[in-house]
């Protein structure tokens, strides 16, 4: 048998070969710019949708964290409870590890607020006794992962013997969390479906590519190309589709965010707010690119596995 090239030469040549195939498959793509760009655009759009939704959800979650301070439980104490007893209850509640902050509205303060708020100010002058109870305003620590913990806290507080009535101001907060939970799962479902779509797009594109290069594959097999050698350019092509698709998706997501930034800022100014619209973080971006590269590779791998073996020289 003949001698092959030297061993270390082989390793260098192998690496050089990989880089060359990586670049030449990119070159191959640029030779059909229109269809390549269309494929990449479809992949990008398919990936932009879930990443945009993810971003929106992330921002809404951040927004609702800002609403923690407006979630309050009002404890209406029995009218018989005096300020001293109320003060000890307040001290006790402050130590509770699910409570952030407690304040007291005394009977007088309550009356004052009522006068100002109700418009019955002058009529109330004729009351001899102050009929209002002392109210403790409890601000719970919100755990976004356990939306129903507030309810447990509410029950616990209601069971205190000094408390006549515990009332959660913000029932809708709980609903918001439930909705966010649904949205979260929805994004996973949409993301998975669109990921599958990317897989199919890449797979189909590679399948067409394999068909177009049929004679090249036949000749290569005839002159002794291993399956790995023949597979490689198609896998790298899939990689490039995924990589550029992911990059484009990032670009589209970021561009959409900038388009939205100004109106959102105006809107939040109308409310309270120190709210900041967040873009994709570095980690998110890396994940996006990695997922899209994997989808590209996997899609081409599936297509290659199915269609390359069918082509044999005859």
């Amino acid at each position: 048998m003949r001698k092959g090239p030297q061993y270390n030469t082989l390793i260098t040549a192998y690496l050089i070969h990989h880089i060359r195939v990586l670049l030449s498959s990119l070159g191959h793509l640029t030779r059909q710019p229109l269809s390549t760009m269309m494929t990449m655009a479809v992949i990008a759009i398919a990936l932009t949708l879930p990443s945009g939704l993810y971003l929106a959800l992330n921002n809404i979650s951040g927004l609702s964290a800002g609403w923690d301070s407006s979630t309050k439980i009002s404890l209406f104490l029995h009218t018989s409870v005096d300020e001293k007893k109320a003060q000890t209850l307040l001290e006790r509640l402050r130590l509770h590890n699910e409570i952030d902050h407690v304040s007291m509205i005394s009977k007088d303060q309550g009356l004052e607020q009522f006068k100002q708020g109700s418009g019955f100010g002058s009529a109330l002058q004729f009351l001899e006794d102050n009929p209002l109870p002392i109210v403790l305003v409890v601000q719970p620590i919100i755990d976004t992962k356990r939306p129903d913990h507030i309810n447990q806290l509410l029950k616990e507080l209601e069971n205190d013997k000094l408390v006549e009535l515990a009332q959660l101001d913000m029932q809708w907060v709980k609903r918001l969390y439930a909705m966010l939970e649904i949205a979260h799962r929805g994004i996973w479902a949409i993301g998975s479906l669109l990921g599958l779509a990317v897989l199919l797009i890449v797979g189909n594109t590679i399948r067409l590519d394999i068909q177009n290069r049929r004679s090249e594959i036949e000749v290569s097999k005839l002159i002794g190309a291993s399956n790995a050698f023949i597979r490689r350019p198609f896998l790298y092509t899939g990689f490039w589709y995924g990589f550029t698709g992911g990059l484009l998706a990032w670009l589209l997501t970021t561009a959409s965010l900038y388009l939205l930034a100004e109106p959102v800022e105006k809107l939040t100014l109308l409310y309270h707010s120190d709210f900041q619209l967040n873009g994709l973080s570095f980690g998110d971006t890396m994940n996006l690119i990695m997922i899209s590269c994997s989808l590209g590779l996997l899609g081409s791998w599936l297509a290659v596995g199915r269609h390359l073996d069918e082509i044999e020289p005859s």
Partner: protein
Amino acid sequence: MIHFDNVSKRYPGGFEALNQVSFRLPRGKMGYLTGHSGAGKSTLLKLIALIERPSRGQIILDGINLNHISNRQVPYVRRNIGIIFQNHHLLYDRPVFDNVAMPLVIQGYRHREIQSRVRAALDQVGLLKKEKSDPITLSGGEQQRVGIARAIVHKPSLLLADEPTGNLDPELSLEIMELFARFNQVGTSVLIASHDLDLIQHMGAQTLSLKDGRIVNDEISPNEIITGAA
């Protein structure tokens, strides 16, 4: 180099293209395979190149029993063979040089070595000046020679050619055949299938005749070197 031992090939559908073929081609020898169209010449070459597998019998190539070669190992056997088949022509999306370089690229040769070997191969077939040409711009004979350069560029120990002169005029055909004879002189084993009896007679090498898939006793050149089944 090649040893067929009672080889039969039945195609799916039941047609028996080869029937109990036995012969031996020693290393470094040149042989012709003749027979009318449909006699089984291409089938025999495809069995050697592992494009088809025998239904019965065994083929020993360079000491290796091809029945024991798995599909994964097929490429490595083929790397030791130069194949010139009718229906596997050049790739028209790349210049002559790249076509000829393919076997070397596949085997991981370095750039510089590829350069010198491709030039040497093109020189041998007299097409050194055409390395940058597109194959489509070459004549039929020139294209065939590029195919031959591609088959010999990695210096295989065996050359297989199926009707290499099929579409060429007699003068060009002779030229191509003489090219093969030259490769044989430097030690390459060569097996050429052709139905062109005049040409083969002119070349005067050992001949194996097939008729309906069987070896027939040979009138053109009774020989000891290629021995038909007894």
